[in-house]
């Protein structure tokens, strides 16, 4: 049952992409409906994973292991633990919403667009499911192509520059990862189990790799993930990519693509190289803390709403990285739930920016003001997304921020309160830049004649935002319903790291 649901979740989008290829390009409605139905069906299928999942164990579930390149011991190996299950659910939830938000704005090459979107989903889910380094790499690279085109073809004015920047940044990282994957396989060979890409086997031998090599492997994997996160100072591709990407692209970028990086840090860096993780925890946390403050301060002075939200991601993802490298259960659990939270609330913020952009075709804050007067329903949902990002207790963001900071505060690996204390000031700045933006866009009098008659949310837009708003409140009020899923997986990782701390 679980295995079938897992395979369906992975392959239905790919099958959907193929179906789309057979639909005539002029049948626009049929293409849109098919794409939407496929993503909704995938989401429903992924929900079947929940009852089948056993949250009381840390081991991989619904595992499939089929030979692929036997000479390299690379296989089609997939499976899920609590952490990856949450990421898969986040992806399958976001995709139908991304489809809904594409219906109107995407007007050219519709068929190609939806095919690419479905391939993108296939790649993202694949990354979260892969239990084989080669398979992981293939999925990782697979994502790059559709995203590159989505920004480059359907993006804004400077789309080519942004797409190229996104492409080069990510490619630089993934080449390093490829080298690390091969090196890791060779290390397995040295360790006496032969060259392998099997993540489960590599997990066993990872800690046995001598520190001088482990360090380099850690950094090679780490760098590709840090670029994706993005960790300061590797973040400058993000504002450009976000601003130029169409709304759906920004939503997916923020909600899922950045999580590939933080997910990779947990899955590879922590699980394979516990000693190196301890070694580098302090240095990485310093960058995370800088990112938190820097992202917030730079977000504060943006005049473009989308850029503001993009820089806020730099700040929010800083919390995630800090939580991960606190190497405590509270911190890593906080990071995992914060990954989900950021996906939901920042995704929602980008949708809100999209709502405004669709009406006015500008993202300049100064073009707006007093929008609440004409769009009261939008004002409420926008406010919920904003306060979720602010980290208001009772909404989702607070749970993640609190736990990551708590983890950093009491981490024996960081050994200092300073990280948490400085990062906590980010909470103040978050209130400043988000409330200030909201104040300038939504409050005041509606003086701009172009804004006098903006229509409130359409039904389509309304139903993109409402499910996310419900989740924001749900996770804020009852975070355990989701956090219990990843509790055991996270405990297993952390206890592994702690084991090597003692030695």
């Amino acid at each position, binding site marked *: 049952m679980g295995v079938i649901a897992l395979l369906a979740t992975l392959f239905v989008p790919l099958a959907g992409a193929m179906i789309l290829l057979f639909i005539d390009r002029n049948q626009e409605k049929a293409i849109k409906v098919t794409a939407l139905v496929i993503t909704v069906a995938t989401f429903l299928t992924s929900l079947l994973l929940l009852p089948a999942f056993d949250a009381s164990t840390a081991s991989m579930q619904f595992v499939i292991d089929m030979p692929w390149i036997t000479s*390299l011991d690379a296989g089609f190996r997939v499976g899920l633990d609590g952490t990856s299950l949450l990421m898969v659910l986040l992806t399958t939830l976001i995709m139908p919403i991304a489809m809904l938000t594409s219906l109107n704005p995407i007007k050219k090459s519709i068929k190609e667009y939806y095919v690419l979107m479905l391939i993108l989903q296939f790649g993202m889910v694949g990354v979260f499911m892969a239990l084989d380094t080669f398979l992981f790499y293939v999925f990782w*690279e697979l994502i790059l*192509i559709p995203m*590159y085109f989505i920004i*480059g073809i359907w993006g804004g004015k400077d789309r080519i520059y942004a797409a*190229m920047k996104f492409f*080069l940044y990510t*490619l630089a990282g993934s*080449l390093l990862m*490829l*080298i690390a994957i*091969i*090196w890791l396989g*060779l290390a397995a060979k040295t360790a006496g189990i032969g060259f392998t890409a099997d993540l489960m086997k590599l997990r066993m031998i990872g800690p046995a790799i001598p520190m001088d090599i482990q360090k380099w492997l850690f950094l090679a994997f780490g760098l590709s993930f840090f670029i994706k996160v993005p960790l300061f*100072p590797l*973040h*400058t591709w993000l504002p450009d990519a976000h601003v130029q990407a169409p709304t759906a692209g920004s939503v997916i970028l923020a909600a899922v693509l950045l999580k590939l990086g933080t997910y990779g840090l947990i899955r590879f860096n922590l699980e394979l190289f516990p000693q190196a993780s301890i070694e580098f925890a302090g240095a990485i946390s310093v960058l995370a803390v800088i990112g938190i403050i*820097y992202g917030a*301060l*730079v977000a*504060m*002075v*943006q005049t473009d709403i989308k850029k503001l939200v993009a820089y806020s991601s730099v700040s929010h993802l800083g919390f995630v990285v800090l939580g991960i490298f606190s190497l*405590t*259960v*509270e911190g890593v*659990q*906080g990071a995992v739930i914060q990954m989900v939270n950021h996906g939901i609330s920042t995704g929602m913020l980008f949708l809100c920016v999209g709502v405004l952009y669709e009406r006015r075709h500008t993202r300049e804050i100064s073009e707006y003001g007093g929008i*609440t*007067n004409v769009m009261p329903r939008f004002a409420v949902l926008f406010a919920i997304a904003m*306060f979720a990002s602010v980290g*208001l*207790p*009772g909404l989702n963001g607070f749970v993640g921020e*609190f*736990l990551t*900071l*708590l983890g950093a*505060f*009491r981490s024996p690996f960081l050994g200092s*309160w300073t990280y*948490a204390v400085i990062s*906590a*000031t980010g*909470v*103040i700045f978050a*209130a*400043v830049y988000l*409330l*200030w933006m909201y*104040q300038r866009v939504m*409050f*005041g*009098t*509606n003086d701009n004649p172009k804004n006098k008659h903006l229509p409130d949310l359409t039904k389509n837009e309304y139903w993109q935002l409402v499910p996310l708003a419900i989740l924001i409140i749900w996770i804020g*009020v009852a*975070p*355990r319903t989701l*956090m219990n899923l990843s509790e055991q997986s*996270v405990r297993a990782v952390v206890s592994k790291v702690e084991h090597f701390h003692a030695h």
Partner: protein
Amino acid sequence: MNYAALIPLFPLIGFVIVAFFGKRLKNEKLIGGIASTAILASFVTAVMVFVGLTNRPEDDRSVIVHVYSWIATGSFSVDVAYQFDQLSILFTLIITGIGFLIHVYSIGYMHGDAGFPRFFAYLNLFVFMMLNLVLASNFLLTFLGWEGVGLASYLLIGFWYDRKFEGTRITWTGDAAMKAFVVNRIGDFGVLLAMFMLFNQFGTLDYATINAQAPGVLTAGGTAVTLITLLLFLGCAGKSAQIPLGVWLPDAMAGPTPVSALIHAATMVTSGIFLIARTNVLFAMSPTTMAVVTGVGITTALIAGTIGIAQRDIKKVLAYSTVSQLGFMFAALGVGAFTAGVFHVMTHAFFKALLFLGAGSVIHGMHHEQDIMKMGGLRKYMPITYRTFFIGTLAISGIPFLSGFFSKDEILWFAFLNGSPVLWGIGAVAAFTTAFYMWRVLSLTFNGTERFDHHHLHPHESPATMTIPLIVLAVLSVFGGLLGVPHVIGHALHFPNLLEHWLEPVFATGMSMLTAHGGDHTSTEVILMTASTVLAILGILLARRIYANGLETASGIAARFTGVYQLLLNKYYVDEVYQMFIAGPILALSRDAMWKIVDVIVIDGAVNGSARIVGASATALRKIQSGVAQNYALIMMAGIVVLVAMVVIPMLR
């Protein structure tokens, strides 16, 4: 006693109903009725819980009701659980009791406003959050309420989001709302860190455990407990508008007046006092923090009192008065007079809610005029408002046997006994300013010549929904003080100090840590009490002399002391200083140094440099390839070559 958990639930239900169906109901009475009933239901339940607690033995009046496990991971665990004890039920009665009156008042005050349902939804949300704040059995749930009331406050200050508001460096009501939220966040930063430290020390955030174990876990007077309590106090200074975070409260007057009465006078702003009372054991363990609390409190009381003298907006005078009175409460807590501090919270809730609602009635009757210079002689148009406002003025001024008299003199007495004569002196001066500025408002508003335009303004008394709450609050302002009659008076009359007795178990451990000042001081206490009362009466007489006949005497004085007058009128230029030395530099640094230099020039410069090299080669490649995408394939190919080489070469070796 599980039904007690209904207390916070009713306002939540009210909020949900009004928020989702309010617009469709289209009936103001029905909407207001639903929202008020929700609060009344909480109040009735709170009374039942109170009776239930009194029926229990004195040392067993703390009941914890678990609702569900909120967050639990690793070794961290926090429940949504409510603690019903002497302290929390007292605050609950104040919040729901006064809250109900203000809800009823608002039905009249907000009549005809387009945002009527929205207003009541926010009010119910506020009460829900406030009840979570005081009823929580642990720090984190209090923190939820703490930031939750901040949210409600934000929404209500900015309720008329499209109106301008004349404030310090502020143009819109929304600016004032944002200022309140952000300044509070600075305080919340302290609470957040305090919680981390507490969890590190105690392994839990439950009040019961922390209060019980604190004497064993922490060293009295040690760095840890001082740091924890100072951080907590930072939060209290934010929420309760003390120096240096008091700047938001006067601007919060941008909200509708019932909001000012409920949130920014009677309940939310006393959260800081509540938190210190709740964690009195921790505070009592740190003499340093206690000294800071006293110092900040008494200074705030004096400074805000002096600013109140020069303000022209009726609500701003009351706002500074609130800041000043809150300062008194903190001073009381700081010298270890916990009961006196909480007592003043209660009496202040009565008379300050009364004064604000009275001001609201005036503003309502004067068609949104708030400048007391443009009022005068209103007593004949608004008799009920005038009489109740008069009572409120006497109560806050500390006229004997009204509620404010008992609580304020209790504070001043302990400031002398546990503190110093100087402390008493500053407090007495602050009390003098209170009497002065309140009588000034009373005179300029209700007495003397009518300074408004009769052709455009027709002042009128407010409807019954507004005057009845005024009357109830006036009665409470008169008799409310009898709950805490000081021993020096009560002893002679055989009247017990009910409140002190009721709260004794809550403060027992905290009090045991402080030096007790025993002995018989009856004569000293009576002398000081007389002295402060005389000062208050002098304040009234002075104000009467200056303002009884209009503005001439006053403007004469203002002209003679221009410097001082400008300083007070401009609130000591605190906002300007913050803007110049904090907000401005941070903005400039972020924009000009970080974004435009680090991001755009340094990092992107490096990236674009390398991109240009790749771009150039891509242009070359494009001559043989057809598009950009193929570059990727090429690079991939190169990667695969490297891959194969790396795999094959070691194998050959």
